[in-house]
């Protein structure tokens, strides 16, 4: 069932390297000297109060936002202004959004097959076979011919995950994937994400789901005011966090 091909850099280098990233929105300093390395197959959960820059951070990794200082290297490719590099990196990274962002004028199947056919020039038959396989993997094989508007929020988010996986990415970015969902639908999406993590996908997840972080994460980054305040294993983070800001945050949500 799990067939995600993991080709980590041969020399054991990290999948994502961020060095001293700085970013401003106008005068506002959103990211301040953020440096992170993510190893292949590692699941990194990013948490933090709203406005702390955690979404901006992961959106910088596939260039939905442009960082102004620092270096980002994904799978050995440096992210700069070179359009070919951006395109190459985007092919390696799948992304799932808070608002799903499915294409409402296309069926579920078309949503999933669009990018492989247009970007990777996969044949329609292959793309559709792959799409059906992915739909089965996220647990909704019967919804292939429906339009996104006909699905529940949880189903839509699972389609969004399948759509991202269809490009066979090496890295998956999740930007608060369960925040827009009704409580009873959160679990079905988290289950898919857990399965994905177990299959060895490199994942960067911005979320408020602490149970997910505790169960799945290899490492937790805590963001506040544009910088990484504290990071560590879930056990460390939830039990032994040192920084007062982290402690305050945890005391408010737990």
């Amino acid at each position, binding site marked *: 069932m799990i067939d995600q091909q993991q080709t980590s850099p041969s020399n054991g280098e990290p999948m994502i390297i961020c060095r001293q990233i700085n970013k401003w929105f106008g005068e506002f300093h959103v990211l301040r000297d953020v440096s992170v390395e993510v190893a292949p197959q590692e699941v990194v959960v990013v948490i933090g109060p709203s406005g702390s820059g955690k979404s901006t951070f992961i959106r910088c990794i596939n260039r939905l936002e442009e960082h102004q200082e620092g270096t980002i290297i994904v799978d050995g490719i440096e992210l700069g202004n070179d359009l070919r590099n951006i395109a190459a990196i985007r092919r390696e990274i799948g992304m799932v*959004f808070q608002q799903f*962002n499915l294409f409402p004028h296309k069926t579920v199947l078309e949503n999933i097959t669009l990018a492989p056919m247009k*970007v990777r020039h996969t044949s329609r038959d292959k793309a559709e076979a792959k799409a059906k396989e992915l739909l089965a993997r996220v647990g909704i094989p019967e919804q292939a011919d429906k339009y996104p508007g006909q699905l529940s929020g949880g189903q839509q988010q699972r389609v969004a995950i399948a759509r991202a996986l269809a490009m066979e990415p090496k890295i998956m970015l999740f930007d608060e994937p369960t925040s827009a969902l009704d409580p009873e639908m959160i679990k079905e999406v988290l289950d898919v994400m857990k399965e994905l993590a177990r299959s060895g996908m490199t994942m960067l997840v911005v979320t408020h789901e602490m149970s997910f972080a505790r169960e799945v994460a290899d490492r937790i980054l805590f963001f506040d005011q544009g910088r990484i305040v504290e990071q560590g294993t879930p056990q460390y983070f939830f039990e032994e966090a040192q920084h007062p800001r982290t402690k305050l945050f945890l005391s408010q949500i737990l």
Partner: protein
Amino acid sequence: MATISDSRSGGLARSVVNYDEPPVKSPPLLAVGPLAWVRRNLFHSWFDTILTLVSAVVIISVLSSFVAWAIGQANWAVVTFNMRLLMLGRFPVDAEWRVALLTAIGAFAVGMSLAVWLRVSRTIVLIVTLSLAFIFISASLITAYVPQSPSYVAAGNNEIVYSASNETPQAQLGFIAKAGETVSVRMADQYAANDPSLSGVYGFSDKAAALLANAAANRLDTAARIESFKAQLSSDLLTTGQRARLNTQLAKLEVPPAITETYTLNQTPIKIRILRGTTLEALATGTLTTGAPAIKVTLPADGWYVLEKIPADSEAKGAALLEVGGISPILERSFTVSGDLDAGGNITATSRVSQYIRVTDNFTTQEIRPAPDDKNVPMAILIDNAYRGNHTFPDFLRLFVAPFFDVIKVPLLIILIATVIGYISADLIDRFAPPSQKKQRTSRRVVTWLLIAFPVIMFGLVYGVGNVLPLTDTRRWGGLLLTIMLTVVAIIASFPLGVALALGRRSDLPVISVASTIYIEIIRGVPLITVLFMAQLLLPLVNPSLAEMPNVFRAMIAITLFNAAYLAENVRGGLQAIPYGQQEAAKALGLNSWQITMNITLPQALRVIFPALVGMVISLFKDTSLVTIVGLLDLTGTAQNIVTQTEFLGLRRETLLFITLLYFGISYVIAGVSRRIETSGAGATLLARKI
């Protein structure tokens, strides 16, 4: 079902469990059904009731006077007679088959689209079939069973004088008829007894007969006015001044002697001969006197005949009013045949042909008008033989309804058959062709291509294609054909231009964005008429070779350029309505910006603005009527032109009403189809979510 509610009344929280199950009852009688609807919507309060009643009175009075006019007074022959002009303008007769073919292809495409997308319900099929059957059957039933009211012509030596007009009855009257028809002539004794009956003549009457009847009516009217003045004078309520004025008026009025007596109506025997137009051989002869039986003759062939009616005693003074069955007014139409442009752009040899058309049933002959004594015989032309009085309902049916149905029934049948064939062939295609790679129905692809190709087919058929089909003279395009050509060409051509302008205005490149913005704002700041004039007058200054471009094409270019600016703004609005997340998601998947526009944002934007686009099509369809101003005869221009012809003077209302119905009908169909599209397919969920 038990409900548990947490009641906090009185500050005490307690749980309540309700195990009762109230029975399900049917609603009160006045809460559902049509009666309830009427009560709720029309008579809800006393104010509603007053509004309802007032509107009802207004609507009924307007409608009833309209119906009375439409049946009694309107002359719809102008529409029936000019149907071809209104539809095709002066499009060459020998190229008419192209338009017929085009219509059939269009109907075929409509039929296929119905099968593929809309699935016609059985009720609609039934309604359409029955309406067409009704048109066919009623046209022939009316012709067969509603007798045509007779025409009235005067005969005699007396000059008939009334007011400023005078007219001596004509000795001969030329008319056209079909083989096998019967013509009968007798004295119109029912009108000749006295003036009240004479004033009641209704039906087609020649000038002299109309003068007789009008004179009688005027005499009765004068008598009535004198009576009313006398009645006023006999009362005591008038001031001296009023009394004096009335007396002066009264002194001017004088009741002439009875008209029937002045002209010794129907006292003079009239010699009748009915002649074959070509040979002038007499088919029937006889002398008519009061009470004599009608002289009848069955006509041997199609063509011209002459009714000769002269007093038996050439010295006798007097007049007779004859009732003639089987003669109807004629219209003369002369036109050019073979006026196409040849390869060098010159008009090929032309010849003018005169046609004579019977107003009542469009029976047409090209036989040459008889000319005994080398003088063209006076013919029963419509202007001189107008209908006197209000039409009776049977006359309305016979004179207007049946001929109108006769004109439209065959084209409608062709359209229906082509539609049905299209509908059936869509199913056949699916049955015999394997599904395509996209797993769509094959018919869907076929009809999509057909619809895309249709404008090209249309242009090719109407204009001509290089060496295959000879080019037609664009100056002869007209009527509804021109209106549709202008609309379709402008829409199709302005679409890519408008989308390009919209994308250009949103572009990150300042040059493109500024250029697009300037273009859009300039065009939107100028009225369409100005743009049309500019295309006519200024384009030749830009490049002299443009002066040779046909007027029609210049109008098409002008409308296209104009429409593109508005379309661009609509598209831009649609693009702005698409959430930015759509682009982000597409970017994250690795699509480039061109792919994002073509696959993600533009299709959604077009879906969002679809209702606005249809509104544009409809308003463009109507706005094309402005081309009249630059000398093109589209539907409106043709209608304007028709009512300036002598035969149809004063028939503006009928003509304009007809084109109004035509414009409305077509716009309504477009709007209806768009509503069906909006509520179906992929866009439906999108639109529903947006709203």
